């Protein structure tokens, strides 16, 4: 299970970063931040490859004593960084890949959200939450907001006009 998930904008600032052991959040911030060096390097190396052949999954960025850091980059150069516990040997490359794909889907859904300004921090409490229940086997992400958004899109759009900023916030808490 991932202990930390980060979505990094094209300009290398975090859009979303959440870690499960919340008491030492800063450590993960540092970890993700320094991993960007490797991501940048990998991307620049990849730049020569043809666009359609490009592999989005960057693989293991670097291992630390307790964690492994994996990376993934979308075609629009948005980066996903995932930190997993080194002791978790059940996670093989394929699982990591599929976790990233799910994350990518969730991210796309967030981008579909009519209230989201691309480039802003992803604020929603629900979006992209990594679930790290040790009992649960396999990666799972709870992505409530986007599906909610799609079904209610019509209503939301209808109600958009009368709502100010406050109204929007309130709506999301429904």
């Amino acid at each position: 299970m991932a202990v930390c998930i980060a979505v990094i904008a094209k300009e290398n600032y975090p859009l979303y970063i959440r870690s499960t052991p919340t008491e030492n959040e800063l450590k993960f911030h540092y970890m993700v931040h320094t991993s960007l060096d490797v991501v940048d390097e990998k991307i620049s190396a990849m730049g020569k490859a043809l666009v359609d052949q490009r592999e989005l999954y960057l693989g293991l960025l670097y291992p630390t004593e307790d964690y492994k850091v994996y990376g993934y980059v979308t075609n629009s150069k948005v980066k996903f960084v995932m930190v997993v516990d080194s002791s978790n040997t059940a996670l093989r490359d394929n699982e990591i890949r599929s976790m990233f794909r799910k994350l990518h889907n969730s991210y796309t859904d967030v981008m579909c959200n009519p209230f989201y300004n691309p480039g802003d921090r992803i604020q929603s409490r629900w979006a992209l939450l990594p679930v790290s229940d040790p009992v649960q086997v396999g990666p799972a992400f709870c992505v409530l907001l986007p599906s909610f958004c799609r079904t209610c899109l019509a209503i939301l759009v209808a109600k958009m006009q009368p709502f100010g900023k406050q109204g929007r916030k309130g709506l999301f808490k429904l």
Partner: protein
Amino acid sequence: MRDFKMSVPDYMQCAEDHQTLLVVVQPVGIVSEENFFRIYKRICSVSQISVRDSQRVLYIRYRHHYPPENNEWGDFQTHRKVVGLITITDCFSAKDWPQTFEKFHVQKEIYGSTLYDSRLFVFGLQGEIVEQPRTDVAFYPNYEDCQTVEKRIEDFIESLFIVLESKRLDRATDKSGDKIPLLCVPFEKKDFVGLDTDSRHYKKRCQGRMRKHVGDLCLQAGMLQDSLVHYHMSVELLRSVNDFLWLGAALEGLCSASVIYHYPGGTGGKSGARRFQGSALPAEAANRHRPGALTTNGINPDTSTEIGRAKNCLSPEDIIDKYKEAISYYSKYKNAGVIELEACIKAVRVLAIQKRSMEASEFLQNAVYINLRQLSEEEKIQRYSVLSELYELIGFHRKSAFFKRVAAMQCVAPSIAEPGWRACYKLLLETLPGYSLSLDPKDFSRGTHRGWAAVQMRLLHELVYASRRMGNPALSVRHLSFLLQTMLDFLSDQEKKDVTQSLENYTSKCPGTMEPIALPGGLTLPPVPFTKLPIVRHVKLLNLPASLRPHKMKSLLGQNVSTKSPFIYSPIIAHNRGEERNKKIDFQWVQGDVCEVQLMVYNPMPFELRVENMGLLTSGVEFESLPAALSLPAESGLYPVTLVGVPQTTGTITVNGYHTTVFGVFSDCLLDNLPGIKTSGSTVEVIPALPRLQISTSLPRSAHSLQPSSGDEISTNVSVQLYNGESQQLIIKLENIGMEPLEKLEVTSKVLTTKEKLYGDFLSWKLEETLAQFPLQPGKVATFTINIKVKLDFSCQENLLQDLSDDGISVSGFPLSSPFRQVVRPRVEGKPVNPPESNKAGDYSHVKVSGLGRWHLPRAVRASAKPFLKHSFESFSERKGCVYLKAGFSVVFVLGQCFGKQSQ
């Protein structure tokens, strides 16, 4: 055990150091540091020498400090061996000379086993001892007069070369017939006790190690190609006997020689330029000594020799592979940690030149995990700084910043007796670019902050703390203000409280200023204005209150004069002015009058915000700002604040911003730098000072006003009740309360009416008496008397009563200077004639005269005030059977103004 282990890594090492000879330069006795380093510097300038009679170049590496235990690894890699010793000493009398010379010998003993030669430089000694020529001692009268130092060093190096060359030849010609001694590193010595020295295996080992050693010597002697050959042979020999440590060393030697060949500019960075000039030489020199590569011309090798050489020399890719292999062999030996670490660093430098950052980072990652013995705090700092530098070298700026920060934290680790806060602070500053943090608040003013807020906030906190411990509160205040200003959106409520609390603590000792702070490193910390405490949303310049507003007096010449165009109307003029009008506001401020600017502010903090000394920043006109103090409730909504000031001169004033003192920090906030601010222009014209007139009457004030104030007329009402036929005097006091003399007074009256009916002439006056007192000097009072006489004729007109009982009758239009009477006309239109019975008698009726009480007169330039008396009767109303005639008048001064010369 510890003795056998090399413990002090040289983090600065690079591959080309393998070709250098190590010379230690040390002071003996008491030599001032300044003098020592002066000589040391001069010695260091002699770092490469072309050896006489050959094209080979010798490279020298000087150290003023070298741990003797590292010297013991000299057989393993000869560049670790101290081959020369230069000592520098002060000696002022011949008496001290024997003692000094003794000390020199003691010093020699330390590195004695490996030294090829040594020199002693004596400063200050004169006399007969100096006369005796000695090769190993040089005498100089003082530190200035020693021009021959460089020459001496060159001679010294040549003597080193002779020894080196003889050793090389001696070893290289060793044939297998002789017994080859086994070279070994310090920790191996005990392992070989009692080993069968006659076995093939042992002999091969000896041969392999010796080959490697000869390779080292060749490399040092400037014979690159020979060294490559020796290394290759050594690798083969050692591989067959699984002598891993030495195999690693042979491989590393191979790498070093190849690196020197491929990258003549050097990999160490700073010394690159120096090495470059002699770059062509080693290759050529080596060429000469390698029989197979000899060409016909000997000096300019053609391509065939390039190919021949390339066979021995590793390709750039191979270099890295071989480094990897060597490091993996080293890692088998715990005691060779330093060798492994240094090999990693050398490989990283090579990779940095090859621009292969990913692989370099792998080497570095490995280096991080190499566990040397328990490092001292100082060594830890050094280690982290070097890691940071190397990461910087390969372009991993974030990683570099991370390690630099760790190094900074190490400087002030609790275990250190004297924490180096200064060093810590300096290192922290260097991490700023890595965390993409600039200390200029302007970089943050545009839009929302985008960055690693959590990490940056931590760094800022550390900067604050380090600067405080450094004893520089001004810096702490600056950093803390920066933190508060730029990271406000990311601070939790509790953090906001804590940060402001500590900021107030610091500013109590050292208030924050708007001066940029220059740091020793050349960095300047720009001032941090608190534009978010409070947040200003709207700035509006206010017009003067209606009573003080200047009015333009109609000039006799008419309006046309003021426009420059001969045309009455031209669309072009209007068009040209369009832009200017956007910023300029169409009212005027008056010199010497209190002018106001309204700001809409709100407090983003979760507690009450006290803003002190809040005033305006203006330009264009001398402006006396009257600062205000305000206290904004927690997370207030928009809150209006009025800032006032007095313009002292005339001209065009521009409001540029405002200044505040919040938490003891002075800030100048310029409107241009504020994001999302709404302003309706910030430039206004200030016209010259105008007089002020205050008017009071002898009559009591009336409770209610007679007419709604229309904005451009100021009125107060006084009232008097009179019976028909009664008369009273109304004295109006005119006082000049301004600073300018009042020159002109005009009075007109107007009896207000809605139905255009007149009920007689109530008022009369003589203006001449009053005008005689003009011009009215400041502070002087003039009086103006009005006679009120009620004279209503009730005799014949029923309609009059009817009209009197009706609300809303008023009479207007008395030009005072020419009073006239007008016959009261009967009312034409029809309310049914139905007067109440009690209204018949005239003696019931009173006249209630409301007069103007206190006037606050706008000032006019050159006091051409033109007041006219507005004089109104208003209404009758029926109350308790009696009819009140409420006749009011108000004296209204409508002031025309001449704006100085402009309209003349």
